[in-house]
């Protein structure tokens, strides 16, 4: 569909949605009144910026289903988030919602090159988590055979992968790497002993480097998938070009905003992802601040699809630091450090205010094999780290070399930032 037609469709859907919510949702009506905006003020697609935001705590505070706008008997499914950063949230779906979710994934899987001939192992958790069931229905919709393996019992999963001639797997990138290690212990070589050719990976942050490693180690193509339970679940993936995640414009409207000013960032610039779901019924989502940092690409993709694409998720808004007016994400530091063999990938960021200026210190571990008793050699490494970080972050930082294994290790969510500024 040409981009202009897509935009016009998005506008119509948004307008309908806003009118509907203003009439039927106590929550949205109050929100819109507080923001002094009436549905009649929405005159073009850009007017989405007049609408109030929704955030995770809105769902928590209205636990479990106070934000639902359809009568309870129209709801056919619930899912619940695990509540890793707070109280659990519940999402609900009408049949129409499930169809939209499935359609989104069916298109996504098709765009990865999957179809009827494929056998797809779904190794996301089945249950309250949206990953398992979402991919399950999406894969069935494209006529593929589904192996609903869920999580755990890795050896059995690898046996089934071989026996059932699985061609694609959907799971977290770390689980796939784990499977690779277990397979090796079992004497199984993915490339030689399985028919696995594609992996749809997500539900946790991962990097281009991890993709390269997975693709090389396992001899497959790995595609990024995106979604959260508030939006329905996993919804969007990269196409076969692997150049960003296509956001189906008829289903969702995405904005990338400066986390502070809430103004749209320039094209291609990093910012906060804000999503409006255009077709959802039971739990409408308008301008939902997912909290993820990414980029937006509205150019037509090499695959021919006109739907806009978002880049890899580069961090969380909660992690963002503002250093001398520049937004800095710990994930950028991590990525930059990965290109420097002399230092490890663990790091700590310490921020202070010296006089009127922000002072950012990055502590990195020198790797044993690069330790030299010559100060010059060490200074060269330190300067290399300083320059690499400066180029990556656009802000100058101090670097401190530390002993290997001396910086804190984190299980689960890492807390790599100590901000001592008193502002």
């Amino acid at each position, binding site marked *: 569909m040409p981009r202009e037609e897509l935009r016009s469709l998005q506008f119509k859907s948004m307008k309908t949605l806003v009118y509907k919510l203003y009439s039927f949702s106590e929550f949205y009506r109050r929100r819109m009144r507080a923001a002094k905006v009436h549905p009649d003020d929405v005159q073009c697609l850009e007017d989405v910026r007049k609408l109030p935001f929704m955030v995770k705590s809105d769902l928590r505070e209205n636990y479990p289903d106070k934000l639902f706008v359809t009568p309870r008997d129209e709801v056919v499914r619930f899912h619940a988030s695990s509540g890793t950063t707070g109280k659990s949230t519940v999402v609900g779906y009408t049949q129409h919602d499930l169809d939209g979710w499935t359609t989104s994934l069916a298109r996504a899987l098709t765009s990865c090159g999957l179809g009827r001939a494929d056998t797809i192992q779904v190794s996301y958790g089945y249950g309250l988590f949206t990953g398992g069931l979402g991919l399950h229905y999406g894969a069935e919709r494209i006529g593929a055979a589904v192996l609903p393996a869920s999580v755990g019992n890795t050896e059995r999963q690898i046996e089934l992968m071989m026996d059932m001639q699985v061609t694609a797997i959907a799971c977290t990138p770390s689980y796939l790497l784990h499977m690779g290690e277990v397979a090796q212990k079992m004497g199984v070589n993915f490339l030689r002993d399985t028919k696995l050719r594609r992996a749809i990976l997500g539900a946790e942050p991962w990097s281009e480097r991890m993709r390269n490693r997975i693709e090389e180690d396992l001899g497959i193509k790995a595609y990024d998938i995106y979604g959260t339970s508030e939006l329905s679940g996993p919804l969007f993936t990269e196409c076969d070009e692997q150049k960003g995640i296509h956001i189906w414009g008829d289903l969702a409207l995405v904005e990338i905003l400066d986390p502070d000013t809430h103004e749209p960032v320039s094209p291609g610039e990093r910012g906060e992802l804000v999503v409006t779901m255009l077709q959802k019924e039971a739990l409408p989502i308008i301008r939902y601040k997912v909290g993820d940092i990414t980029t937006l690409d509205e150019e037509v993709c090499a695959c021919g699809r006109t739907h806009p694409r978002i880049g890899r998720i580069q961090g969380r808004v909660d992690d963002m630091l503002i250093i001398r007016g520049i937004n800095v994400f710990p994930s950028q530091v991590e990525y930059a450090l990965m290109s420097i063999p002399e230092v490890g990938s663990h790091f700590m960021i310490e921020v202070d205010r010296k006089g009127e200026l922000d002072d950012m210190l990055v502590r990195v571990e*020198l790797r*044993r094999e690069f*330790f*030299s*008793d*010559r*100060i*010059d050699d*060490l*200074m060269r490494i*330190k300067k290399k780290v300083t320059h690499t970080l400066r180029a990556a972050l656009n802000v100058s930082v*101090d*670097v*401190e*070399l*530390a*002993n*290997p*294994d*001396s910086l804190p290790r984190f299980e689960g969510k890492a807390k790599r930032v100590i901000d001592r500024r008193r502002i």
Partner: protein
Amino acid sequence: MVKKHLIQQVSMFTENRPGRLAAFAQAMEQAGIDIYAFSIAEADGFGVIRALVSDPAVACDRLTALGFMVKMTDVIAVRMKDRPGGLREVAEVLGRADINIDYSYAYSSKHGAVLILRVDKAEDAVKSLKESGVPLLESAEVH
């Protein structure tokens, strides 16, 4: 015999915070290792402790086990003549042989004043110095 004149120095990376030297010294004490000489080189935010000790291999193992980053470096120990021109002689020999001195420090041993040299080409340095009659300590005399 060049090798016997290469003396193993323990070099340890230190972060720039209080108590690092004490941590090093304590580790040596607990391992029953004598420190004959040491120097601290400091740079912007870090430093390197360099030391001649009675048992460098044990010292390295001990320090590594404690989480420190250490390595052994070959250095040369010159027995200094107690007269004017002693240092010039050593420096000239090395200069003529196109050998660069990375760093040096001195200590007073039972053999008198000893100059420790860390050079870029240790074996060449030993040869040149010996050929020029500069007295060098052997590893066995130091440890």
